[in-house]
């Protein structure tokens, strides 16, 4: 790419061949007003706010006009301000843009622009078209009245999430945003990732949970990591008055990357779950509230009794690999001193193998061949699925699917080997062999990426490891839980203990929604059960002692994501008064 030089507002500015005028302005620190522009998706110049004047007095949109060498651009003039102001007033007059009863007021880019341009009245009569608000979706509202047709949501849905739920119907002033042509959100192909809500510049798409509960400037924003899967997507927790109002994706200001899925954005706050708020102990068959001291004494007594009667191997320490590395390491050292060192496991922990260079999420888009393996692949790692779909759609990347996945990915696979269980390993190992339908693709590929979803992520790929020196092929091993790799690093395996022989189990469940059934499925017979959990689950209902735990948004710690990066969990709010974290509990149990 060659550098080009142009003049902006009389000063020299440089850009790359292929840059738009807007990109050059951004780099030169010139703040052009924009509305429809969104980092990461293509520009369409609908809002006309970024207009600039060229030397021949033509007025063009900076976001869609290529910068050319020698160009002379003016970004501010009375003429431009007058045009921008008129356009803005027309936007306000077209639908209902009264701020005082809008959920977005204070966090609205349309409002910010009107302030910036000093819009103290509108010269055009408002049209008040009769438009519907779609409130059918569980988590978001779509109000046509507030829509300015900037199409950010549409482009984000199509280009970032590759889901294509949103579209535009009709033409001109009659244009309206549509959901699958004419569906309600709840009945549509929407995957509820909430990206459209996050990118909406106005109050047309807003979150039900956080609406009217505080503008961003009145909230505390805390950077943390989504604990719902091993991708470890970075999030911004929006908190106010001791409550987390919303989970936003952390969006890179450079390239606009940053997505979440339904689980991360909406379900991770555990709204539908009942919290454990006080320690509980079983008395006459039912769980009754007790003090922390009583609960710890009962737990210690029960565990000690099993140790005494049945020996060290009869007591298990079990944790969820969703817990942070510090908590898992604390369990490991507790087991070393109080139990048998080999008697601690983390469900969902990843096995360690000779690693090839870790692939990162952007590698999915950079690869020239994606080998996706697993059962119901990417279902638990939806954001990875979005990227695979994008790679196929936007880069025409060939996809080899081994195992099962969504219908859409199955349809898109060039080669599909629908195997399960042990056959997954065999299919992966024989991939490059002559006669395998995927072999020609593998041979032709320069940058193949192996995206291994559970259970394929536990399969050792010697062939892949051998080719690792060149940097490619790369492997992205998705774990069963958020901190699958951190658990392995903390010295906790997923298996290797004798559940049947257990007479007592100390289970650190944290806020893991899946651990309860996984642990219950392994337990057998009479045993003494202590459960440290943020929520009531079938497991806490079986426990003898239940200890309240903080949820992920209430504690600090680190995890290691599937890309091998250390990521941070940070508390956005205080835990409930009764909750104590894993380290405190283990310390109390050992003292």
């Amino acid at each position, binding site marked *: 790419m060659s550098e080009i030089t142009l003049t902006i507002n009389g000063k020299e500015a440089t850009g790359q061949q292929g840059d738009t005028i807007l990109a050059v302005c951004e780099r030169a620190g010139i703040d052009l007003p924009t509305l429809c522009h969104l980092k990461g998706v293509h520009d369409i110049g609908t809002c006309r706010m970024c207009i600039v004047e060229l030397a021949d007095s033509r007025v063009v949109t900076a976001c869609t006009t290529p910068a050319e060498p020698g160009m002379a651009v003016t970004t501010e003039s009375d003429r431009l301000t007058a045009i921008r102001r008129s356009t803005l007033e027309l936007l*306000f007059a077209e639908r*209902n843009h*009264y*701020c*005082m*009863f*809008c959920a977005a*007021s*204070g966090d609205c880019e349309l*409002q910010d622009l*009107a*302030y910036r341009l*000093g819009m*103290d*009245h*509108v*010269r055009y*009569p*408002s049209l*008040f078209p*009769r438009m519907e608000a779609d409130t059918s979706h569980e988590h978001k509202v779509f109000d046509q*009245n507030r829509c300015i047709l900037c199409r950010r949501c549409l482009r984000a849905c199509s280009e970032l999430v590759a889901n294509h739920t949103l579209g535009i119907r009709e033409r001109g002033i009659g244009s309206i945003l549509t959901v699958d042509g004419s569906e309600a959100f709840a009945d549509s192909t929407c995957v509820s990732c909430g990206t459209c809500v996050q990118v909406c510049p106005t109050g047309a798409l807003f979150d039900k949970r956080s609406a009217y509960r505080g503008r961003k400037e009145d909230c505390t924003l805390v950077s943390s990591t989504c604990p719902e899967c091993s991708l470890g997507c970075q999030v911004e927790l929006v908190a106010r008055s001791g409550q987390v109002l919303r989970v936003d994706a952390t969006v890179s200001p450079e390239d606009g990357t940053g997505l979440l899925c339904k689980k991360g954005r909406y379900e991770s706050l555990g709204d539908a779950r009942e919290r454990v708020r006080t320690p509980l102990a079983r008395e006459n068959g039912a769980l009754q509230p007790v003090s922390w001291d009583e609960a710890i004494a009962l737990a210690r007594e029960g565990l000690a009794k099993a140790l005494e009667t049945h020996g060290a191997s009869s007591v298990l320490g079990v944790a969820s690999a969703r817990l942070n590395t510090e908590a898992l390491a604390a369990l490991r050292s507790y087991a070393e001193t109080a139990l048998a060192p080999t008697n601690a496991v983390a469900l969902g922990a990843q096995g360690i193998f000779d690693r090839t260079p870790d692939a990162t999420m952007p590698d999915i888009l950079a690869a020239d061949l994606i080998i996706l393996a697993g059962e119901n692949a990417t279902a638990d790692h939806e954001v990875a699925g979005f990227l695979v779909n994008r790679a196929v759609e936007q880069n025409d990347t060939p996809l080899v699917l081994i195992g099962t996945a969504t219908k859409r990915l199955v349809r898109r696979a060039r080669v599909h080997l629908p195997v399960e269980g042990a056959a997954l390993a065999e299919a992966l190992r024989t991939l490059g062999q002559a006669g395998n339908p995927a072999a020609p693709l593998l041979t032709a590929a320069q940058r193949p990426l192996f995206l291994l979803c559970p259970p394929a992520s536990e399969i050792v790929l010697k062939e892949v490891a051998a080719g690792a020196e060149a940097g490619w092929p790369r492997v992205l091993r998705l774990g069963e839980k958020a901190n699958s790799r951190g658990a392995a690093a903390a010295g906790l395996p997923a298996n290797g203990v004798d559940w049947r022989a257990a007479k007592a189990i100390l289970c650190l469940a944290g806020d893991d929604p899946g651990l309860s059934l996984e642990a219950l499925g392994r337990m057998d017979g009479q045993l003494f059960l202590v459960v440290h959990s943020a929520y009531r689950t079938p497991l806490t209902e079986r426990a003898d002692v239940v200890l309240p735990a903080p949820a992920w948004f209430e504690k600090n710690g680190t995890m290691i994501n599937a890309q091998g990066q250390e990521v941070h969990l940070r508390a956005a709010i205080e835990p409930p008064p009764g909750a104590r974290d894993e380290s405190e509990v283990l310390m109390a149990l050992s003292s």
Partner: protein
Amino acid sequence: MAKVKIATDWLAGCAGCHMSLLDLDEELVTILGEVELTSSPITDLKHPPEVTVGIVEGAVANTANINTLKEMREKCQILLALGDCACFGGIPTMRNLVGTEEALKRAYIETPSTVDGEVPSDPELCQLLDRTRACNEVVKVDAYLPGCPPSAQAIGWAIKELLEGRLPEPVGENLRYD
């Protein structure tokens, strides 16, 4: 120097802008050193004399609002639209999203607590317009101070601008829509 005469009135509004004016507190005393407040909901005088500045709060929602606004326009040299309703239409325009007839039916007949309701039709009453409007759709407006309500500070600033012979053009902290 003679005091500058100001008249204020409200149309379809909530009185919030006038409350915000009163929120100027002790600064009002200073302002009243230079200003004579003539007719106003505060002085309870209904018809403005000839004034330099007329200030109206509220949108134009009915025939009485039109009369009040036109009377103010005739009597003042400078008309200031105060608040979002006067500047843009604001809250009273929510009616426009369903239509006047529908809104009346809902309010007087369909509410769950209403028994044998009817839409008031006494000839003494003013008529609702087909749709609520901003002031500048009915008369010429010279200056605008949006806000719901505008802050006391912004109102104080606007009055001072007028006293110094300038039409207020609010920006920054003085320009708010909520």
